[in-house]
């Protein structure tokens, strides 16, 4: 009872919550001194945590895929199904779109509307090409009777890769929204925060895809 009340009576903040210099702690000691972090850092950090939780969700799908890899119910395996040429094109699209997304971040930093819109447009086109190739691949698989209902392996494959595809599609919607918002509202602070979250999201999608193309496609074709 005594310690906090005496501290309060003395007009002091025993835990140095936001009174850095007054309470005699070194400024910005990492104990709340200097007040709360700026909005941009809070937003970015929160979205980074979301991205990591998304990665954890994908890891569960990866684990399911690895466990069900041999559950083929007499059906085809990765070597018969996957076309690495298409995967290579998809990979190139997504990697380049991640790069142009970085260029768009630079343009946002330089407050250049033209370059921002241009880089975002290229990013969106590459992302659309990726999704188009993926949909045609899925259609080809279903057509030859290797749909998600055929075996445990194919269920896990469609869930993992399809979930990534849904993420990219949502990212494309978000990208269009960002282009419209930059055009309509300019480089307002909250729009720039929103764009920062988008660029994190888009780069993270490419990181997930690195796991998919190496773990599912390339290793799948190597091991059969």
């Amino acid at each position, binding site marked *: 009872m005594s310690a906090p009340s005496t501290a309060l009576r003395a007009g002091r903040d025993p835990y140095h919550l936001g009174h850095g210099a007054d309470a005699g702690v*070194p*400024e*910005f*000691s*990492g104990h*709340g*001194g*200097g*007040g*709360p*972090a*700026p909005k*941009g*850092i809070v*937003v*970015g*950090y929160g*979205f*980074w*945590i979301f991205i*990591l*939780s998304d*990665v*954890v969700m994908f*890891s569960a799908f*990866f*684990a*399911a895929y*690895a*466990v069900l890899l041999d559950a083929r119910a007499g059906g085809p395996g990765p070597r018969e199904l996957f076309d*690495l040429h298409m995967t*290579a094109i998809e*990979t*190139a699209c997504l*990697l*380049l779109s*991640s*790069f142009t997304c*970085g*260029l768009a*971040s*630079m343009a946002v*930093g*330089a407050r250049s509307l033209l370059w921002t819109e241009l880089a975002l447009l290229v990013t969106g086109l590459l992302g659309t090409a990726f999704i188009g190739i993926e949909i045609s691949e899925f259609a080809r698989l279903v057509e030859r009777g290797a749909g998600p209902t055929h075996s445990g392996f194919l269920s896990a494959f469609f869930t993992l890769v399809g979930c990534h595809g849904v993420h990219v599609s949502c990212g494309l919607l978000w990208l269009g929204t960002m282009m419209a918002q930059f055009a309509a509202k300019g480089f307002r602070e909250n729009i720039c925060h929103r764009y*920062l979250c988008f*660029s*994190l999201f888009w*780069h993270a999608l*490419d*990181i997930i895809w*690195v*796991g998919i*193309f*190496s*773990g599912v496609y*390339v*290793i799948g*074709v*190597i*091991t059969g």
Partner: protein
Amino acid sequence: MNTDPTSRGRTAAGSRVGEDRVAGAPSRTLDEDSLGAELRRYVIGLVLSALLTVAAFLSVGTHLIYGPGIVMAVVVFGLAQVGMHLVFFLHLTTAPDNANNALALAFGFLIVCLIVFGSIWIMYHLNHNMIPPRELMDMRG
């Protein structure tokens, strides 16, 4: 860049809340010449990622790598590329102003490893300990 005393403020060491770097954002000096440096980072990241991607795809059916080790080589290429993305595209460092982001990533990495390797380990042993369907038929018959 980070050693510039004017941009770092008075106390250079320790985690400074007000100086934390935004996740995914480059370090704080955005003037004309740092734009060139930033572009260089993205280009380096793109080139290295492309090289690792090409290496991963070329390892299919290659004779340059010892056969049974090819899968491990692809895993290494993949992990290296994830590292390239984190460093060059997401600007992740272990500098004090980035400690929160790096620690969150480390925790995420731990959970991912637990889920993936834990699942594979447990399911492998479950499969191992189960009676194969053929023997089950024999017992019934």
